[in-house]
């Protein structure tokens, strides 16, 4: 069976766990900043709508964070269970940011718990302060974990002598060449995706007939902030291309189906690959790959001809790359049109079909996150630690990984369905209008 090979089964199970976890992780990193913005605007403008927004987002957030804790614990342990040889080596050199991540998350979890269970126990301004450690903790857990991933792509800070790791420098291992672009890309995309997810919810509510100004405020705020982070993502993405060209040219070449080393390289979008590795039906943007790789339209870009076959990443990552870039561009355009539309009073941005596009943007952004991670992880193959250890050498020797895959797949299915059902129930039983009415009734009561 497919699962007989522990290496392949371990890869599949890791793919499954990470693809599931990244949904919750992205929400976990991205949403706190929006809770914070909403809470702050509520205080600043003395507008209860924004306070309610923070409250409702935090309520949903708590559920996703709880599931994220579960899936995060799973991946943390699975690293050792599925890749014991890798963790034995990596433990010597890159355990530091892993350890730091736990602290950062701990910090976030404590204050999120306090924030969520103390509505009404503190004055609003004081209560707001509790969000600062939540945002910082969430951001830094993303930073530290991404540092580990960056290390896997560009390992440094040690010497290998006869298979023994010596001269370890844990700090140098944290600040690899891959780290700046990767960390900033992960952060920006998390904020962007969270923004478009929240925007999608608000747009959906507006389509479904609730014409409440609450949803309009939510939509407006998230689309504006989303635009900023979407542009930031694209800029950082450009730097990531330059990083790849310099340090992992095989990944960029595989993503771009760039087989021959040459100058003035075109950027290949979409298309098909026939048996002779000829690219068909693709859109070729002249000079664009050279610009992406080196910022110079005639610069030479290293092709796959420079690498032995067994060290060439799977060529399917081309589609992951295209999906990520296409969605990113689409979201920039969508948010830009929305923003211009509201400024210049274009009426079509308030029509249902435009709002449906915004709704679509939510899941699309998550798809882009998935595509991006698939590209970077599959694109590192055959290595788990680039140039040092392959996935074959790293994987467990246990025969039971296939069975575990089935168990975990079932678990994720339950968790995923459960999340959707519970979130729907929470918000259905507590619609915005009702909560606002209750608040106004209470205010009225106090004034009398």
């Amino acid at each position, binding site marked *: 069976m497919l699962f007989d090979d522990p290496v392949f089964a371990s890869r599949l199970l890791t793919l499954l766990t990470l693809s599931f976890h990244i949904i919750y992780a992205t929400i976990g990193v991205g949403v706190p900043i929006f809770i914070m913005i909403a809470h702050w605007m509520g205080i600043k403008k003395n507008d209860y709508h924004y306070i309610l927004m923070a409250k409702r987002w935090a309520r949903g957030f*708590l*559920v996703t964070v*709880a*599931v994220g*804790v*579960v899936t995060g*614990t799973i991946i*943390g*342990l*699975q690293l*050792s*269970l*599925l890749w*014991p*040889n890798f*963790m*034995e080596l990596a*433990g*010597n050199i890159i*355990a*530091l940011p*892993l*350890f*730091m991540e*736990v*602290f950062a998350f*701990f*910090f976030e*979890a*404590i204050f999120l*718990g*306090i924030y*969520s*269970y*103390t509505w*009404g*126990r*503190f004055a*609003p301004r004081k209560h707001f302060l509790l969000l600062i*450690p939540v945002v910082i903790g969430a951001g830094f857990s993303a930073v530290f974990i991404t540092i580990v991933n960056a290390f896997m792509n560009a390992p440094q800070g040690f010497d290998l002598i006869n298979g023994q*790791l010596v001269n*370890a*420098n*844990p700090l140098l291992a944290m600040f690899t060449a891959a780290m700046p672009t990767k960390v900033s890309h992960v952060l920006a995309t998390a904020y962007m995706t969270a923004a478009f997810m929240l925007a999608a919810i608000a747009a959906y509510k507006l389509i479904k007939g609730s014409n409440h100004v609450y949803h309009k405020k939510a939509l407006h705020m998230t689309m504006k902030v989303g635009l900023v982070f979407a542009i930031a993502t694209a800029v950082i993405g450009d730097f990531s291309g330059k990083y790849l060209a310099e340090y992992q040219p095989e990944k960029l070449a595989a993503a771009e189906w760039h087989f021959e080393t040459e100058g003035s390289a075109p950027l290949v979008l979409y298309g098909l690959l026939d048996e002779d590795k000829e690219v068909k039906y693709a859109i070729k943007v002249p000079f664009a790959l050279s610009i992406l790789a080196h910022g110079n339209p005639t610069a030479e870009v290293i092709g796959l001809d420079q690498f032995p076959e067994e060290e060439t990443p799977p060529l399917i990552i081309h589609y992951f790359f295209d999906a990520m870039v296409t969605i990113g561009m689409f979201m920039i355009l969508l948010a830009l049109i929305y923003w211009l539309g509201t400024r210049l009073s274009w009426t079509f941005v308030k029509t249902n079909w435009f709002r449906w596009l915004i709704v679509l943007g939510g899941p699309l952004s998550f798809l882009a996150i998935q595509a991006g991670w698939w590209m970077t992880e599959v694109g590192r193959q055959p290595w788990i630690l680039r140039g040092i250890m392959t996935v074959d050498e790293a994987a*467990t*020797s*246990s025969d*039971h*990984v296939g069975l*575990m895959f089935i*168990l975990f797949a079932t*678990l994720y299915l*339950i*968790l995923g369905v*459960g*999340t959707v059902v*519970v979130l729907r*129930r*929470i918000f259905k*039983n507590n619609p915005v209008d009702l909560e606002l009415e209750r608040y106004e009734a209470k205010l009225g009561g106090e004034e009398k």
Partner: protein
Amino acid sequence: MSLEIIGVSVLWTFLFGYVILGSIDFGAGFFNAYSIISGKQHIVSKIIQRYLSPVWEVTNVFFVFFFVGIVGFFPKTAFYFGTILLVPGSLAIILMAIRGSYYAFETYGTRGHKGYAFMYGIAGLLVPASLSVVLAITEGGFVSIVDGQPVLDYWALFTSPLSWSIVVLAIAAVLYISAVFLTWYAHKAGDIGATKLMRKYALVWAIPLIVAAGGIIFELSSHNPAHFERILDLWWMFALSAILWAATVWLLWKQKNYGMAVWLLVGQFALAFYAYGISHYPYLLYPHLTIQDGFTNEAMAISLIVVFILGFILLVPSIYLLVRLFLFDKDYVKGQNKKKE
């Protein structure tokens, strides 16, 4: 003190934190399920929602700290334990996932499906049972090295009286720790019915606890004589622990000073837990891996310890705030929210 001793002490301390906090959590889940069946639900579930929901993630993080830390300080453990624990480890995390999702779905969402509460309760006993098996494995005799790869002998493990005594101890400890803590918490909340009930559970589980603990030491005398010898050297720590156990039971019996009872219980477990840890020295896995062999390089060890200290400076005040708001705030414990809106 050498770096590896500092490292292993840090890890053992995290594990101790998890044992105490986790036990309260696991046991409460079980009592909750049990009380649903026996029709006393309202008594326990309210306390569980007020205390456990805000802190369960913190409890979980203690566990994560332990297994992330052990790979950092002792990377070779990833190779040995990672390989042999694939199945038991995966089962344990799936069970933990069931418990975590209960918090996610039931307490934050609308209340409850009985079957779910039941699974949550059962998982609360199965998690410590499956995790404690690791302690049995470290005693040696269940792992052999075949072609350079460690292999776990499941049959030997499942038929060993030692592993079953450890499982019984783990379950008894969970229920006892949880019941003592909840007795105190219910008492503080002024819930007389729950106090009575929990006190009864605490007294019931005190006996199997001490019997199982004695049983393990007895089993070790034949299973791992070297370890047994070292335990005898530390007899005074175990004796002190037993005295604290007796004092806790006495306080519960006399129905007074439940707060003190909780602290005595923590002392009892700390003494026994650290004494066990010290007597386990120098082995992480008998006889294959010692803490010296498995230790990381000096640079990593020092940076981990520095980060640990910095992190602790950050976390201690945060945890203090959490505890003050949810554990020691009289109004919150009693379920009365102060309104300051």
